[in-house]
């Protein structure tokens, strides 16, 4: 089973559970200074909740950054 971060699959054992903070280490190769925000299964997760919000297989994480817009 997998979790998905920005559409990319990462393996996670069935029944396993990891924090959002842990999951973000799959996405980022180094500690982040960049600007981003997170949604889990299309629900916003605030930065203060990264350590206490947990992800299981089948979940989907979106990590978004600023971009130009009209």
């Amino acid at each position: 089973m997998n979790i998905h971060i920005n559409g990319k699959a990462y393996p996670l054992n069935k029944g396993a559970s990891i924090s959002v903070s842990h999951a973000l280490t799959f996405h980022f190769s180094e500690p982040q200074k960049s600007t981003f925000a997170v949604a889990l299964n299309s629900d916003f997760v605030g930065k203060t909740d990264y350590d206490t919000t947990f992800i299981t297989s089948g979940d989907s994480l979106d990590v978004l950054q600023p971009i130009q817009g009209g």
Partner: protein
Amino acid sequence: MPLTIYGKKLDSRLLIGSALYPSPQVMKQAILASGSQVVTLSLKRQNPTEKSGQQIWTYLQDIIAESNGYLLPNTAGCKTAKEAVTLAKMSREIFKTDWIKLEVIGDDYNLQPDPIELLQATEQLIADGFKVLPYCTDDLVICQRLYDLGCEVIMPWASPIGTGKGLMNPYNLETIRLRLPDATLILDAGIGKPSDACLAMEMGYDGVLLNSAIALADNPVMMAKAFSQALQAGEQGYIAGIMEQRQTAHPSTPTLDTPFWHQS
């Protein structure tokens, strides 16, 4: 006269987008040349190997600092109230503003706002403390509902996003102005020419939000200045009081003692 957006007084009545410019340098020059103090931006999925996103964010922060302005994040790409609410919350955390340009698109062909989802999202966001600037069609009743929900600012379209077709339905837009005299009305989307912006201001609109018309010009910096001047001209024309149209011709030059007057 200053434009007031949710209590913030702004010197310029132009709100400007940050997309589609030939380069970040031209974007910065054009936005600063426009005099605008409100710059729209958005969010996208992050690619950790790509550095350009952080670079753009740095540019935008510089622009806001230099213009003493404000960021206005949008919810572009959202098709449901739930998506828009989530994106608004993510934007609030990143950009540290409770302003949100609320877009909920109902049709992929002309990017027309979905009025039902828009109203639902507006209600939820206002309850959560957001200051909502809704992008909507030029439908009087939808604008009225948005105002009743607590939107101090309403942003009906001139025409579909990016078309440059200008004011498709001036009657609708004039009626919205007439019926919502206390709302801050910003004409958003579809503006193509400086004269479009001037026309909106002559109608008594409080401001104009545009992006493509400047970003896609051959010379975006010059076009930004042109729009700035057009907005000022339109605003002054509205304040000065535009003459009533008349059905028949009236000579401008006095007719008394006209030479060579033909007596018949």
